[in-house]
């Protein structure tokens, strides 16, 4: 194990660790463009040059392996001078596009220029104009070759992660530019990731283009609901400028690093599911098709459920959080003596990188908490003799209304379930409530509130608690984490877990008991 000194501090790292990673252990950030932990090392931007004592010249921190006794300086005058020079070199042909560039505000060129460069241009010649500005290279991707600093991250991504090889670098010297391969179109299922990894504004997302400035956005940790993988994401919300993008609150998803789940990536399919959050939402309750207040709707359902006695049931879609599933179970299967089952998750295509066939975020959670699946809801209702049923989420329910006296649906979007309902209650989507999902691999991960429930919608867990009040079984949970605590208390796989212990990256089922159990 080599032991080295970086900026006067000693650190011991595994054999083969690069200097940039060794510095990261010490929370020392070495500026870089081409280096990305998920990709191979290119070493072409030269931004990460550091001084290693005894070495004849500056070394690139991203490709120099730590060796025993090495003394590294990352922030002395020489390093700063080199960085300023490298930046000046990179910026020679970079256009002054910041006002129109979507990357402005999260651009590494801007950041490092302010930190290390901040010098005037010494270029007397005209800047080299590349062939095209703002060129579409894929269904969602725009390329601006003038802004490109040729770090080759995107090329390596298509080579190493998706193995689709759409991109390459052509021409020589300062005429080099990123080009699509002959006949190629950047339309692979992870193409959006090239925008995320592009350190400058060369690759931009057509969907996000010009909608909003990035400094208006607030990032909230969450989980993608596109499939059972549970990719870690940040929901970028625009809270203060409602005139942007037609009043949309959620502007985009960005993948969040989680080595256990999605590394640094997410698929385009999941990336654009954010549109569902603001699009075509249910914003008011209805009773028998007439608009009603949420209270009236809850009263109507409460009365119907009371009348049905223990012939009540709940069908929960696998889009519900663990907390909502637990409340449904505790109220219907527990307190009321009725029945609870989960609805079959929608199925789709899968691939060998991230995308799974199960297109719901919490199928594993439903399995763990409710256990029973109602593959055919109508048959299930008939079999159990249920007279009043509450459906949480979206499902194919044709014919259900004929079988029971009362159908209440807690839904977020109008759909097949709401068509079958006597009472429709507007619930919350994942961006509007705290909670947790359990991905198919059994990892419990938190979602956070990014925006308040839209219009007259109410958090789904609150609606279930209100129903409990009306049925004489009040819950005394004040917040979502209280519900999770009760869940962890009652279900073995969740034992020992809490919202706090899940943290930003989640924890596998059963992990809450492994260590403490031995101690006890």
């Amino acid at each position, binding site marked *: 194990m080599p032991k080295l000194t970086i900026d006067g501090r000693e650190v011991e790292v595994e054999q083969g660790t690069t200097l940039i990673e060794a510095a990261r252990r010490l929370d020392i950030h070495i500026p870089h463009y081409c280096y990305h932990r998920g990709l191979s090392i290119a070493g072409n931007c030269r931004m990460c040059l550091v001084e290693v004592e005894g070495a004849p010249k500056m070394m690139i921190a991203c490709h120099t392996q730590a060796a025993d006794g090495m003394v590294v300086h990352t922030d002395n005058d020489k390093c700063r001078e080199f960085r300023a020079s490298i930046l000046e070199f990179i910026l020679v042909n970079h256009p002054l*596009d910041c*006002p*129109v560039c979507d990357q*402005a505000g999260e651009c590494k060129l801007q950041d490092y220029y302010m930190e290390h460069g901040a010098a005037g241009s010494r270029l007397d010649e005209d800047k080299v104009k590349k062939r*095209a*500005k703002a060129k579409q290279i894929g269904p969602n991707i725009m390329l601006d070759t003038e802004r490109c600093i040729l770090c080759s991250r995107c090329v390596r991504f298509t080579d190493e992660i998706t193995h689709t090889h759409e991109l390459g670098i052509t021409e020589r010297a300062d005429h080099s530019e990123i080009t699509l391969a002959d006949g190629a179109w950047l339309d692979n299922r992870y193409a959006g990731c090239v925008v995320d990894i592009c350190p400058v504004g060369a690759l931009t997302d057509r969907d996000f283009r*010009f909608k909003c*400035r990035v400094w208006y956005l607030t990032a909230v940790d969450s989980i993608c609901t596109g499939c059972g993988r549970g990719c870690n994401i940040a929901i970028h919300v625009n809270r203060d*400028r409602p005139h942007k993008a037609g009043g949309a609150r959620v502007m985009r998803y960005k993948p969040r690093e989680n080595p256990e789940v999605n590394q640094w990536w997410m698929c385009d399919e999941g990336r654009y599911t954010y549109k569902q959050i603001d699009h075509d939402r249910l914003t008011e309750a209805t009773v028998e098709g007439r608009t009603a207040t949420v209270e009236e709707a809850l009263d109507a359902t409460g009365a119907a459920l009371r009348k049905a006695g223990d012939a009540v049931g709940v069908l929960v879609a696998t889009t519900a959080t663990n907390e909502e599933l637990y409340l449904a179970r505790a109220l219907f299967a527990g307190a009321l003596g009725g029945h609870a089952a989960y609805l079959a998750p929608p199925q789709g295509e899968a691939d060998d990188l991230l995308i799974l066939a199960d297109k719901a975020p919490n199928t594993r959670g439903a399995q763990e908490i409710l256990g029973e699946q109602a593959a055919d809801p109508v048959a299930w209702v008939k079999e159990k003799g249920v007279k009043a049923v509450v459906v949480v989420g979206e499902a194919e329910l044709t014919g259900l209304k004929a079988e029971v006296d009362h159908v209440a649906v807690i839904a977020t979007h109008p759909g097949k379930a709401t068509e079958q309902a006597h009472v429709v209650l507007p619930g919350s989507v994942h961006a509007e409530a705290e909670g947790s999902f359990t991905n198919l691999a059994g990892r419990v991960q938190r979602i956070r509130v990014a925006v308040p429930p839209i219009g007259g919608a109410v958090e789904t867990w609150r609606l279930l608690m209100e129903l409990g009040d009306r049925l004489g079984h009040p819950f005394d949970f004040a917040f979502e984490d209280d519900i999770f605590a009760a869940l962890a208390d009652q279900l073995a796989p969740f034992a020992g877990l809490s919202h706090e212990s899940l943290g930003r990256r989640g924890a596998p089922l059963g992990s809450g008991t492994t260590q403490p159990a031995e101690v006890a």
Partner: protein
Amino acid sequence: MENVARKPGTVTPAGAPKRGPLSFWERIYVVEAARGVWITTVHFCRNMWRHTLHLVGLAKDKQAAVTVQYPEELRYVPPRSRTRHRIVRREDGSPRCVGCMMCETICPARCIYIVAEEDPDPNIEKRPKRFDIDLGMCVFCGFCVEACPEDAIRMDTQMVDLAAYSRNGMILTLDQLLAGEPAAPREATNALGERVHG
């Protein structure tokens, strides 16, 4: 009221005459009050006399009131005053603004609303689809002018008479902003529209 009396040597505002302890007649206040009333009355009589003279067309050079009767009389607006905004046009008449939202970001009153869109010319790339300034909220700080990287927004129309019958009427749209022209500083005029020194 001896507590009002200034002790000798206490700090007085710069330029203020140093006041010693109050005399007996000052302290009983009645005389001082009467003197005050006298000053007020003299002022009243002087101004009233001048007003009366003005009515019959005399002594016009002696002011009776210092107020400017606004809609009829106008005050001088200095050339560097920050006045109503305008958006500068390119040679082809399109807005020079590229919708970078710097002004919107810097605006302390949050009175600028910009929605950007793709410009058909890839060398311009971005243009404002909507550019509204809510003058009802604007504080005329001029930060937007300072922040603009394209010199596209200026406050040199010399328009200061901004009023509307509704809040919506105070919102300037892109077209109105583009229609603004730079103007010469406004001169002071009297009720007859004649130039005066003011």
